[in-house]
């Protein structure tokens, strides 16, 4: 398969297969629509993990209601034997648990797709719908299988059994994953799960579907992949990057990172503290950093806003701190469980004063790991706060990826309490920041006070205008030095031509797919994706100059002057009027076809 081929599942045929056997699917987008308490995330996760084990590509997409319990929820799994870059615009298969699931999602089915609905709950829509619709009494069959006592629980496992049967998945592997998922609980739970699963697996669905399907085996490496979500990958990256201490306050969608760190860090001899509030959390994390550790705090927009004063202290006192922002829809409480990329300018400029700090953004789940590792490294090297801007989509999305090579990506932290000599200067004008964590002896007998007041090279407070000028330059120049080391991002697609798409963060996959589709239509299109957002790499204009249009694709508002947040920065830096924006704020991931049509509209003559 050419690396530029798209993974749009257009090659699936759902017409009756020749009698010789099953229809081979290269890709399948399966959407489960139900309520949040139905456990559809569980089966989606199991399928994703199964795909990782079968060396298939996988990407998932989930919406969760922000209500405490209940409310419509979907989980979409995109399985493929080629490169899977997005969760899929349309689904090939829809499993609808309720009438509202059916009504709201039947439209997401691609023409010729298959809808399997719970005939105990759903009234089928008659009409000229181009889809194969199959009603199965999911609720009553599950209740029957469980002996009639468990009400409606277990429907998700019944459906997993159906899916295993329909796609001829490896039953042994699926059962193994189910056992691992439920085996830790009491025996009844696993037994009921298996009863429901087997009922689904044995249900005579083949007669109803007319066609048999089989997913092609992946052509990837034989080794099993790691399958997990972005927040978990971030946690592992922080652990590998040398973080041993952290503090935070719960907030969606950041909480699952702190919950995991709270449990994981003690295994590494470290500690994560749930603080009383966001202000206390960032202060504690800075206390850890001052004490000589690589520390982390994190939150989502509302909490990050509260941390801003303390983060300016981090820049002034030059303390290393990793700050994770799992972006969600804003402003204010906004859309707590929707995706948005509207905190970029806040990450760069959100504190008072001239307050430079590093800002990074991961592009997919695997990159959450690598970005976290890099953030830790940069925090130590440049001694300042380092923001990682992930988002709601990456937080909950499950992907399969190659196991990271720990021989290259593991930092073992040490506490350096060696005596500091007479020449010790924490903030030399001509060199990197030095620290003397408490506990280190100062051989000259003079101990340092770390301060948020402007200070000289020794850290002594000073309101001298010349010193403020020089120290402001110092804090700025060390990040410019970082910028000078950053390589230009590689160009995907055409190296020059008509259109360059620029993106950052979780839009990487859909942008890449959009490039492929536009090229198939005969357009000359390339894309670059920025991981380093502050500082950015130098010389981006040499890339921009090779295209007629530079379109920055972002999930934020075009603002008062018509440009999204990254586009605003790029225009300010490169003064190039051909830099324009493709923005949106509907709280949903970009669909590939949306990007394609927006690009086409923006480049019409």
């Amino acid at each position, binding site marked *: 398969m050419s690396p530029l081929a798209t993974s749009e599942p257009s090659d699936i045929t759902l017409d009756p297969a020749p009698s010789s056997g099953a229809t081979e699917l290269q890709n399948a987008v399966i959407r489960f629509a139900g309520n949040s308490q139905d456990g559809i995330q569980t089966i989606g996760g199991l399928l994703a993990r199964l795909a*990782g084990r079968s060396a298939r590509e996988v990407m998932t997409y989930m919406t969760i209601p922000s209500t405490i319990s209940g409310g419509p929820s979907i989980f979409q799994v995109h399985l493929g034997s080629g490169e899977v870059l997005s969760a899929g615009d349309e689904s090939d298969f829809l499993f609808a648990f309720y009438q509202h699931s059916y009504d709201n999602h039947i439209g997401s089915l691609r023409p010729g797709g298959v809808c399997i609905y719970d005939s105990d709950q759903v009234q089928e829509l008659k009409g000229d719908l181009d889809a194969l619709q199959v009603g199965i009494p999911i609720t009553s069959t599950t209740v029957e299988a469980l002996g009639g006592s468990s009400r409606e629980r277990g429907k998700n496992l019944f459906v997993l059994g159906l899916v295993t049967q329909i796609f001829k998945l490896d039953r042994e592997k699926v059962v193994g994953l189910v056992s691992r998922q439920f085996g830790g609980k009491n025996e009844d739970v696993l037994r009921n799960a298996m009863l429901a699963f087997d009922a689904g697996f044995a249900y005579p669905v083949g007669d109803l579907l007319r066609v048999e399907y089989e997913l092609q085996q992946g052509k990837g490496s034989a080794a099993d992949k790691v399958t997990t979500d972005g927040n978990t990958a971030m946690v592992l990256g922080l652990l590998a990057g040398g973080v041993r201490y952290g503090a935070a306050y719960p907030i969606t969608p950041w909480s699952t990172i702190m919950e995991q760190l709270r449990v994981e860090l003690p295994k590494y001899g470290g500690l994560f503290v749930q603080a009383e509030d966001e202000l*206390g959390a960032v*202060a*504690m994390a800075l206390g850890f950093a001052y*004490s000589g550790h690589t*520390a982390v705090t994190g939150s989502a927009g509302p909490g990050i806003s509260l941390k801003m004063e303390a983060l300016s202290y981090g820049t002034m006192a030059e303390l290393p701190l990793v700050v994770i922002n799992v972006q969600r829809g804003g402003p204010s409480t906004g859309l707590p469980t929707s995706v948005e990329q509207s905190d970029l300018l806040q990450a760069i400029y959100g504190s008072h004063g001239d307050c430079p700090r590093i800002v990074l953004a991961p592009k997919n789940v695997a990159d959450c790991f690598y970005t976290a590792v890099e953030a830790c490294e940069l925090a130590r090297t440049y001694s300042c706060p380092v923001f990682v801007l992930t988002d709601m989509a990456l937080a909950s999305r499950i992907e399969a990826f190659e196991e990271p090579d720990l021989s290259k990506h593991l930092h073992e932290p040490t506490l350096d309490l060696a005596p500091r000599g007479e020449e010790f200067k924490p903030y030399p004008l001509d060199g990197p920041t030095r620290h003397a964590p408490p506990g280190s002896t100062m051989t000259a007998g003079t*101990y340092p006070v770390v301060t948020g007041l402007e200070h000289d090279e020794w850290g002594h407070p000073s309101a001298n205008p010349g010193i403020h000028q020089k120290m402001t330059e110092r804090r700025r120049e060390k990040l410019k030095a970082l910028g000078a080391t950053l390589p230009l991002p590689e160009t995907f697609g055409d190296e020059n031509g008509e259109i360059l798409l620029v993106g950052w963060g979780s839009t990487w996959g859909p942008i890449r797919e959009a490039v492929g589709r536009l090229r198939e239509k005969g357009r000359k299109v390339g894309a670059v994706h920025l991981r380093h957002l502050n500082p950015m790499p130098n010389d981006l204009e040499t890339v921009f100059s090779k295209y007629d249009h530079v379109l920055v694709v972002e999930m934020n508002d075009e603002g008062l002057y018509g440009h999204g947040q990254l586009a605003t920065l790029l225009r300010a830096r490169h003064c190039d009027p051909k830099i324009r924006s493709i923005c949106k704020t509907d709280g949903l991931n970009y669909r590939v076809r949306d990007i394609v049509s927006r690009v086409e509209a923006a480049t019409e003559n």
Partner: protein
Amino acid sequence: MSTAAEAPKPLTKKDLTADHPTWCPGCGDFAVLASFFKVLEKLQIPHEKICTIAGIGCSSRFPYFVNGHGVHFIHGRALPFATGVSLSRPDLHVFAFGGDGDGYSIGGNHLDHAARKNVNLTYIVMDNFVYGLTKKQTSPTSPKGFKSKTDPTGAIDQPINPMKKLVYGGASFVARTHATQVKHMMEVFERAILHPGFSVVEVLSECVVFYPGAFDAGNPRKGGAFDLIEERKWDDTPEDAERHDVSDENAAYQLASLPFPGKFGVFYETDRPTKNQLEQIWIDASREKVGNASAADLLTTRFAAMK
């Protein structure tokens, strides 16, 4: 030159003295600083293990005047910062300093939580009942009727009762002293430092510029009364029953309810596990459960479980 056999040089007040304080002449905080030096000298805490942390305010400039590892942090957040230092560095002696605005107003929430968590550190509040650094605004401890730039006709809000707040919050050592009573101040500082857990000393420390005479009622030299709390000696005498049981929370509230200037000494002291100890128990159990595995092994195992 020192030799290996030589004992470390004893810590002296001279070693601990840094810049001359920028406080106004006559400020109560000078005596607090001098007492702190003397107690450190007596306790002989290793010089490099002393860590002083403060927020913003006149008294929060304290770390600049102590020659030791110090932090001048942001307004109101000295306690969570100090919590980070204390929890991750059990080898250190962590001290937090501040005033009534920093500790009871903007940082009030952190005080409650540091207290309930019983973080192992010592917090000294220099309470002057007024905002001094910003030149005379009402503070959370300003009494009703106090005329300030923000209450020109007199403060109208009920002030915080620091001792009640501290006892309620769960601080495991709560004491009160007066900056003019140096001997007493040194005694309670020493007890606070030796107490394992979150120990707080509220020091009435006069601002001679913006609230002169605020604490004369507690100063015998100005005609006031410096009434000490008599603590139980547990000697089975009838008079002992009348004395204060420092472990009795209700008795501490009663002492805290006395009209100004009230009593001085230890209001409350209890021995309960510190957050530092409780977290360490969990860390040790977690390490044991994973067989003290290396980070590389832990991560490799984790990756394997996700396949």
